[in-house]
């Protein structure tokens, strides 16, 4: 019997191809189109990845908080799945931000770490994401887990702007708007757009995965396979 692909599967496949093509183009632009930086040379190209994942990490935190608020308002588990997906990807992006930031800092300032505002804020964000997952892992009941982690996500959302403000006032050696060649700016923008598209695609796939897992668990409980 022939099985037809559903519309959603076709859409996901098309989106995946599109994002892959975008990332491939972005990669070409980073390594072949963007000019070589005078001071740091090719190492400077880390910035295109660093800024993109930093942006995605912050966007992940915002998305996690907003979908958490939606869950508390609607009590629909779909919003909790979105929140978890955004949190997981946000944490991954925060990790990459710290890693790429350290690599860049080592080349630029000859140190793996410094307490400059954005790295500090990224570390705080990473720790908040880690706390969010620890809370989720501590609670077995799905509704209670969704509710408490939603509250934490909202606290994090309210806190992050204050963290950024405080760390900027505290220190200020990180380049906020560095001087850039126009081609570099274009590549930076393409990089942010590409990684944002990847973030959205992965969030959709992860959310679908979480929903499927929840449905399977519900079915297993109904049939008495698991408690």
């Amino acid at each position, binding site marked *: 019997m022939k099985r037809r692909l559903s519309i959603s599967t076709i859409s996901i496949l098309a989106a995946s191809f599109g994002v892959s093509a975008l990332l491939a183009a972005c990669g070409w632009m980073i390594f072949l189109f963007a000019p070589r930086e005078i001071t740091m040379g090719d190492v400077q190209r880390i910035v295109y990845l660093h800024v993109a994942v930093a942006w995605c990490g912050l966007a992940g935190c915002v998305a996690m908080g907003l979908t958490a608020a939606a869950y*508390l308002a609607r009590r629909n588990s779909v919003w909790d799945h979105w929140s978890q997906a955004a949190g997981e990807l946000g944490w991954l992006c925060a990790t990459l931000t710290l890693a790429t930031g350290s690599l860049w800092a080592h080349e630029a300032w000859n140190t793996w770490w410094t307490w400059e505002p954005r790295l*500090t804020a990224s570390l*705080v964000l990473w*720790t*908040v994401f*880690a*706390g969010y997952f*620890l*809370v989720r892992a*501590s*609670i077995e009941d799905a509704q*209670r887990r969704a*509710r*408490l982690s*939603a*509250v*934490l996500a*909202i*606290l*994090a959302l*309210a*806190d992050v702007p*204050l*963290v950024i*403000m*405080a*760390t900027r*006032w*505290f220190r200020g050696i990180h380049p906020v708007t560095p001087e850039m060649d126009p081609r570099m700016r274009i590549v930076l923008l393409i990089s942010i757009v590409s990684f944002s598209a990847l973030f959205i695609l992965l969030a959709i796939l992860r959310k679908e995965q979480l929903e499927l897992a929840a449905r399977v668990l519900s079915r297993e409980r109904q049939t008495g396979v698991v408690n």
Partner: protein
Amino acid sequence: MALSHAAKTWWWLVHKDLLRELRAPRAWPAMLILSLALAMVISVQIDSPSDQHLELAGGMFWLAAFFAGTVALDRSFSGEHEQACWQGLLLYPVGPGTLFLAKLAANFLAFCALDVVLVPAFTLLSGVSLFAQPGPFLATALVANLGFSAVGTLVSALTSGLSQRHGLLVLLLFPLVLPVVLGAVQATRAMLVGDFSSWWRWIQLLSCFAAVFVALGTLIFDYLVED
């Protein structure tokens, strides 16, 4: 009339917490002794020339105060779970916001009591009189304690029913209160070196933080206490 009822019940809730602590002191003695021990340990480790004491005293003081304060925060809700007292509290005609504000006030008073003990101890150990500028120091302590109490009360309520609550409380709390820690330390430093324009900027950040989290806590506490 509803406001009068809320105010009265708020007062009796705070009264109840203070009376319990007076009758069977568990949190305050541990908190005060821990703060003195921390102050001693930090002072011994930082063996700096005396002209740097003004720069470092604020950091030493607030680190000892905030870490010791977590003892009171931990006890804040764990003490209510004995005899299911917390369930009993939720059955009174009291809004969740009032419950939050009462716990916040009790924690705030605990931190103020901690400061009263720690300031003279610190003056002795560091040789820096934090109370040389009483007005600015009082203002700093009040807004810093308020912000710390607000977030601490929320995080304590969130973690109180969880299996790993002790570790989670500290892990979740300190990234979220980084603006308070930075703000209190920098405001104290600025006050001690006579830079009052910088002091005022940090006080504004602390006030903003406290206002945001007191308001947010009053609104979302309902979601933390429901079952």
